[in-house]
């Protein structure tokens, strides 16, 4: 078996995959539409855009520390599309239950309660507790308020409020698109690779293929070539759609962008092969697929900044490769930074690809 025949064989396999895909009209449409729908719905609808979110500060403390804290919050001018994110009002003397009822009534998105001995305690370097109530039904806003307040509180002592412009001049779409691209590529490569293999196991065509002189490597390579073309094609469709529908800017290098996508797709294909190794039919695969891809979707910060997620969620996210793909794509597409800025992401994604691919090839047995 020479390398040339292996490559020729893998192209035969890839060609077959495309031919079959072109006839699965019912699959073809969602494959292309899924990322567009995500962008449109989340870009327009959910909008991480926080505009004039009402915040109330309750403080009966008139000391220096609390005054400056209140001032810092009040002066915060982060903006989305020119609108300030928060509109802050102040009051004195309110009980926590009273405050909760205001949140329940939807009057405020967040209420910060400063205890009356706050300034004294800060001055004495003693620990003190600030209570922050948020409207947690509105996850986006409350997430932003929490992460904002955390940063303010972290500065206690000198209380200098310096919030980096993470959200300042960003459209939510700019933030969302890299995440949706990474998510689409991940879900797409895992699901289409795995479900195709599981389907071929179910209808016996995989075994039939393994009875031919074609090597295992060629079959996997063929499926990978198919996935690379398919997923990059989808990413391009998504970018064009985001650009046409909502206006979107690419600040970094397309080459780096493609590099991240290729490495990540390889990992996804490997993942799909591993996951399909243990199942005998399509339906079982789809269940396993849900178990693996759904948490990635919600935990890794596709739709919200990871920094505003609770700690436990961040720990999980750091174990998931999607997190690093999103991070790398955001750095390239939003910040326009180069290779050095995404090197740690690339290393982790490459490891992911190497590990899943090696394991996938080993698990993908010729034995039927």
């Amino acid at each position, binding site marked *: 078996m020479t390398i040339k025949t292996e490559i020729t064989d893998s192209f035969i396999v890839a060609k077959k995959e495309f031919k*079959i895909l072109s006839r699965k009209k019912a699959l073809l449409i969602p494959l292309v539409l899924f990322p567009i729908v995500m962008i449109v719905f989340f870009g327009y609808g959910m909008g991480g855009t926080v505009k004039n979110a009402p915040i109330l500060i309750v403080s009966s403390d008139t000391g220096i520390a609390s005054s400056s804290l209140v001032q810092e919050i009040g002066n915060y001018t982060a903006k989305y599309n020119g609108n300030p994110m928060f509109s802050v009002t102040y009051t004195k003397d309110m009980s926590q239950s009273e405050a909760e009822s205001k949140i329940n009534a939807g009057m405020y998105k967040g209420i910060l309660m400063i205890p009356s001995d706050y300034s004294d305690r800060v001055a004495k370097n003693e620990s003190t507790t600030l209570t922050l109530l948020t409207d947690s039904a509105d996850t986006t806003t409350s997430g932003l308020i929490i992460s904002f307040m955390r940063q303010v509180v972290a500065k206690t002592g000198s209380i200098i409020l310096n919030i980096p412009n993470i959200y300042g001049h960003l459209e939510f779409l700019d933030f969302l698109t890299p995440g949706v691209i990474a998510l689409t590529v991940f879900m797409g490569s895992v699901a289409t690779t795995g479900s195709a293999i599981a389907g071929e196991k179910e*209808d016996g065509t995989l075994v039939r293929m393994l009875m031919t*002189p074609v090597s295992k490597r060629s079959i996997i390579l063929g499926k990978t070539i198919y996935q690379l073309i398919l997923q990059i094609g989808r990413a391009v469709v998504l970018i064009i759609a985001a650009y046409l529908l909502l206006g979107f800017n690419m600040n970094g290098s397309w080459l780096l962008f493609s590099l991240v996508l290729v490495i990540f797709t390889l990992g996804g294909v490997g993942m799909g092969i591993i996951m399909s190794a243990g199942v005998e039919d399509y339906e079982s695969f789809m269940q396993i697929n849900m178990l693996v891809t759904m948490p990635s979707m919600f935990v890794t910060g596709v739709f919200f900044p990871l920094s505003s997620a609770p700690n436990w969620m961040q720990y999980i996210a750091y174990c998931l490769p999607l997190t690093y793909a999103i991070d790398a794509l955001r750095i390239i597409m939003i910040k326009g930074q180069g290779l050095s800025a995404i090197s740690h992401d690339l290393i982790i994604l490459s490891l992911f690809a190497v590990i899943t691919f090696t394991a996938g090839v080993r698990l993908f047995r*010729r*034995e039927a």
Partner: protein
Amino acid sequence: MEPIIEIKNLVKVFHSRGRKITAVNDVSFDVFKGEIFGMIGPNGAGKSTTFSVLTTLLKPTSGSVKVAGFDVEKQDDKIRPIIGIVPQKLSLYPLLTARENLELMGNLYNVPKKVMEERIDYYLRLVGLESSADRFTGGFSGGMKQRLSVIAAVIHDPEILFWDEPSTGLDPQTRQAIWKLAKKFNTEGKTLIFTTHYMEEADNLCNRVAVMNSGKIVALDDPETLKKNTGGANLEEVFIRFTGEEVRD
């Protein structure tokens, strides 16, 4: 007669949920070049497992198996190009047409394009599928699929054919057609090994029949001798005599 398949002390053990299952238990036999060789036996007798070892899909646990002089364990890549397999489970791509399924097989076996096209046309006519050549096989009847599977296994002109239960669930017409194909391929010099549950099929076609039971070969001879030795009127009686009346799982 020259053996084309040599099996010596073949054992295949599966481990499943802590249980050890010996599917093939110390089996030895030869298949001669140019014969039609049948394997019969109740469900779970080890026919399909033996088949999978011969077609390089499973590695033997122990014993030596040679196909056309090549060792199934070490030279499987030499064996695959010269054998043609009709698997028990029909395995055609439903969203490819009959012709595309055949072309895929031809390409995977590296058959030159021109030769392949000629063979495809010839075989499609031979099995009466020329008018359905450009239809998706997903819509084919069981008989059509089986005929297509049979010709898909000869596109690369193999020396040895393996048919695993080629006529199960088919109507008598298709079965007759399959038998005719078996005889035709055999007269062209191909060796054919097949498994079946139809005794008259084995009786009609085979030069020799191996009866398997519980992972062992319990009888191996030409159908006439088997009938004479056991006093059975037909192969079905021979079969029951060797394998008992108990229904298998």
